[in-house]
């Protein structure tokens, strides 16, 4: 069925559907063109494996789930956005959870807010796959809601928590639902996750993560101040192939750094620090650095 879709759609988009990685693979080899992607998948799978080692192998290194966890019986980690909703609902969290949230905030202020999205969140694998499949199948149609929607939703989840006195968003949040599902039992959560996947595949390209998800929006707010960022330091070498825009889940963040005259650093909190632009660029324009690094190589 899906291959029929691909064949039917192929001629119309032949030029566009050539892989955005073709040039990079030629220049750097397959491994070089997927370096950061592979690292991210290892990170996402590794974190999940740490959680799973307990229930599956009796190796209790990490207990709990992404909402709150305890590592090696000493290190508490708590989702700060969840704790914020709890606060809005009228509960002042215990010291362990509060400390856990502070540690997480501090970490993402260093590592880049939405590094959570690219390096930890399990839904990201799902939505990246949907985006990849769209490209492969040559699905061009689709409408996305405005990017600002996620920030409004962020506000809406807090308002709902305040109005109901419960952490209402957790009733439907696919992010925590997937992790909790894998570790404690999925129930009907697959339906919500399937809906997210189909939404991204058929309705709105990059719809969920780049337009809707309030969890990502929360980490994007942290990302505005984050230390580790991507820089288009060798922007002079850019040959306008647009491969980076095509692989980036948030292409608008690249423009000011690559084409603007001011800072070469991608400052927008929307950037997930996924490093896909670094991978996809055959001219090695991008690299990870810190936000204060204003160097731009002369072309």
């Amino acid at each position, binding site marked *: 069925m899906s291959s029929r879709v691909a064949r039917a759609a192929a001629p119309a988009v032949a030029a566009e559907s050539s892989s955005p990685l073709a040039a990079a693979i030629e220049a750097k080899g397959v491994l070089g063109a997927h370096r950061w992607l592979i690292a991210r998948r290892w990170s996402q799978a590794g974190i999940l494996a740490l959680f799973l080692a*307990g229930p599956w192998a009796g190796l*209790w290194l990490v*207990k*709990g*789930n992404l*909402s*709150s*966890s*305890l590592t090696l019986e000493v290190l*508490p980690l*708590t*989702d700060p956005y*969840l*704790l914020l909703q*709890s606060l809005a*609902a*009228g*509960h*002042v*969290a*215990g010291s*362990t*959870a509060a400390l*856990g949230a502070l540690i997480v905030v501090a970490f993402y202020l260093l590592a880049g807010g939405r590094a959570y999205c690219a390096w930890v969140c399990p839904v990201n694998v799902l939505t990246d796959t949907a985006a990849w499949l769209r490209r492969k199948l040559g699905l061009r149609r689709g409408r996305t*809601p*405005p990017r*600002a*929607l996620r920030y*409004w*939703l962020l*506000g*809406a*989840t807090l*308002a*709902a*928590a305040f*109005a*109901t*006195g*419960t*952490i*209402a*968003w*957790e*009733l*439907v949040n696919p992010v*925590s*639902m997937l992790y*909790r*599902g894998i*570790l*404690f*039992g*999925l*129930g*009907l*959560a697959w*339906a*919500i996750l399937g809906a997210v996947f189909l939404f991204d595949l058929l309705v709105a390209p990059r719809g969920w993560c780049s337009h809707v998800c309030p969890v990502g929006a929360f980490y994007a707010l942290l990302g505005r101040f984050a230390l580790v960022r991507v820089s288009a330091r060798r922007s002079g070498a850019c040959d306008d192939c647009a491969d980076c825009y095509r692989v980036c889940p948030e292409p608008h963040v690249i423009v000011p750094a690559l084409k603007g005259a001011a800072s070469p650093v991608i400052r927008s909190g929307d950037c997930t620090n996924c490093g896909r632009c670094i991978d996809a660029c055959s001219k090695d324009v991008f690299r990870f650095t810190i936000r204060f690094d204003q160097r731009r190589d002369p072309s």
Partner: protein
Amino acid sequence: MDSSSSAAARRRFLQGIAGAAGSASLCALGLSLYARQTRALPADALRPPGALDEDRFSAACVRCGLCVRACPYDTLKLSEPGDNVVTGTPYFVARKIPCEMCPDIPCAKACPTGALDKALSDIAAARMGLAVLVDQETCLNYQGLRCDVCYRVCPLIDRAITLELRHNERTGKHAMFIPTVHADQCTGCGKCERSCVLDEAAIKVLPLVQARGALGAHYRLGWKEKEKAGRALGPEVIELPVRRPEAAP
């Protein structure tokens, strides 16, 4: 760009924002309604020891499952979408695996948020629910037999549950031993319900809101007031007017 097309762009932008704001408000409303609907706990679901009352619990619990992992008896479970307990929150079903009332209460200790109260130090003070002998028609002791199982398994035997003697009208010469739960002692651990020998337990542990009545705030019990004041608050015997139907003698 001429001014009319920039005006159009501005209009599109504003429309986009308005759309986003509108859908966000709809989401908030939908979420709130959904949250309200899922608030009540079903009759067979009990919260772990030390849980805040249900309203405060759903604001406090982040659904991490650390309590579930801490329980040595696999009593606790995180609700899955489709179960009719608020998604992701911990609960147990007494008839499946009851709470063994660990003296060190590891589940409450593990809770990072305070949804389970760490200050609970005596497990006998936990109030997870309240046992109620819901069916006198099937309870064997009510038939005059000596089953006594719920009584015997109770960790607080003779305090939370006692056997009260009653005359057996059916035989005319035997006694019945009626299992009787005392709300001031019962922790709601569920061991009695778990071990009831019937196909469907005659004694059930219910969440407190469902198990308990409540006196109106204005209600005063005369004898208690008397005890408090040290004397009767009104005249001991009140003369009441005699009312009789007109025709009666």
